[in-house]
């Protein structure tokens, strides 16, 4: 049992942490949930609505469109980033000249703010003079410039690529840590047993990397679900609302002065994120040893 004095110390040391998290995360979340039960519009008196906002949301086609986009974006970008990140990590884990520099170079996309790299991609996808069309035309892949952001598929893919560019390095570095932690003996043993490269990967690398992979997946999934800046900058939700993310949809309502409905959208997004996190934790046993 901790002594009284020790307990007081512990409390005092934990206080700043608990206060900050409580004041700037827990309370705002609770406040948002509370607001979602109200009509909170600048030009009408505030009124308790009960579940009315949620009922409206269920009938709101734009909401379903945003929910669908957000889920599809997550489903498309997370596996891409994790697979690409794994490839990067495997490359970085090989003996190569200037490994340190190589790692640093890989980290560059991650260090650039997403809003800033978003603008770079906005220019890359520019119909008249962007890099993407320049490459396509120069390499002869198409004889007319492609309207990248003009179809829902194109805009979707463009966003996934821009997002993958930025976040793959993050995944790669986390996975690299997992790779370096795998003892070399295991590979040597596998080689002696006659396992080829692929078999080694399947039998040694993947199983041992699983915990780290799960961490990367969880982080990326949560991050992809709340995607905001990339979409805000590159497509603004268009064309035809096909790339409107839930975060952006909620923000649009805040911006137009409807805080109640905006909060309702945020609560749903939060619920989706929470449900997926719980699923991950259940499936992977993530962090079980810590508790």
């Amino acid at each position, binding site marked *: 049992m901790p002594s009284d004095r020790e307990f007081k110390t512990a409390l005092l040391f934990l206080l700043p942490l608990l206060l900050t998290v409580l004041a700037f995360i827990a309370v705002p979340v609770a406040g948002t949930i509370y607001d979602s039960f109200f009509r909170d519009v600048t030009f009408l008196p505030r009124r308790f609505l009960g579940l009315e906002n949620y009922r409206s949301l269920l009938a709101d086609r734009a909401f379903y469109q945003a929910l669908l986009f957000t889920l599809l974006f997550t489903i498309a970008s997370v596996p891409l980033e994790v697979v690409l990140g794994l490839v990067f990590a495997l490359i970085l884990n090989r003996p190569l000249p200037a490994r340190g520099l190589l790692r640093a170079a890989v980290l560059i996309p991650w260090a650039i703010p997403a809003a800033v790299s978003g603008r770079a991609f906005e220019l890359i996808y520019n119909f008249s003079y962007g890099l993407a069309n320049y490459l396509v035309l120069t390499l002869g892949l198409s004889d007319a410039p492609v309207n990248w952001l003009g179809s829902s598929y194109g805009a979707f893919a463009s966003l996934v690529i821009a997002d993958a560019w930025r976040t793959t390095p993050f995944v790669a570095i986390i996975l690299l840590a997992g790779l370096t932690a795998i003892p070399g003996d295991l590979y040597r043993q596998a080689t002696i047993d006659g396992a080829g490269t692929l078999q080694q990967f399947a039998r040694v690398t993947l199983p041992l990397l699983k915990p780290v992979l799960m*961490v990367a997946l969880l982080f990326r999934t949560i991050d992809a679900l709340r995607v905001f800046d990339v979409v805000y900058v590159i497509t603004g939700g268009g064309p035809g609302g096909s790339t409107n993310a839930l975060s952006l949809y909620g923000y649009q309502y805040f911006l137009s002065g409807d805080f109640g409905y905006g909060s309702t959208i945020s609560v749903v997004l939060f619920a989706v994120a929470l449900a997926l996190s719980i699923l991950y934790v259940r499936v992977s046993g993530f962090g079980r040893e810590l508790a």
Partner: protein
Amino acid sequence: MKPFSPRPLLTLVAALVMLLFCLVPFGYMVLTSFARQPDYLRKQEGLALTLEHYHDILSAESLHFLDYLRNSLVISGVSAACAVAIAALAAYVLTRLRIPGKGTILFGVLAASLFPQVSLVSYLFKVMNALGWINTYPALILPYIAWVLPLSLWILVSYFAQIPLDLDRAARVDGCSRPQILLRVILPVAAPGIFSTFLLAFIFSFNEFLFALVLTTDYQARTIPVGIALFQGLHGEIPWGRIMAASVFTTLPVVALTLLFQRRIVQGLTRGAVKG
């Protein structure tokens, strides 16, 4: 004699492809920032280089680029420092003292990082508004501290857990109090870890967008990502050269930090991940 193996060559090619993937967009940004016109890829006459965009963003006061940069540096620096300090105190308790509910605290805090910003932002806005802090540094610093705390705590806990308890015991025998142990024993030993945590917290705050978009209104507190995202001319014209110059100029310190402290950043990121 070893038989010829294509593997090193393949690795090298793969590494080059990877490097291209990571650097081409950045290179394009740099090139555009020096190009007189952003449509140099289409025009026959080709690329005319100029420094005018850099000159513009650094000298035209009305663009407020330097204000944004200063705001970003101060806000991210202070947020990261506070977050690391708070996280260090907590990490010390969580790794050194036997108190009930450790796992709950650790998980509670980690769970807090799962909330989408958009579900915090309307309420944060109301609170900051009530306090009259909209468009001031604290309006961003306080949420940022909370925002990067989970990550900082996670990393520091894994660092502190590796520091042998014998050190504490020896210090206790010498008559040190808990705070003294933290200050004189743990912190010096964990200095590299503290530093990488600070770097990561700094980069995360530096890159944050939504809070900054909603909680600030002008150059007095607006940060770089929002400043650049909204860099516009009259009637929505897009001054690509200036945007890219500002982006490159902003990215340089971060890239320099990354290049210099790549090992630290990697360590920081991997601590959090591998332990979990």
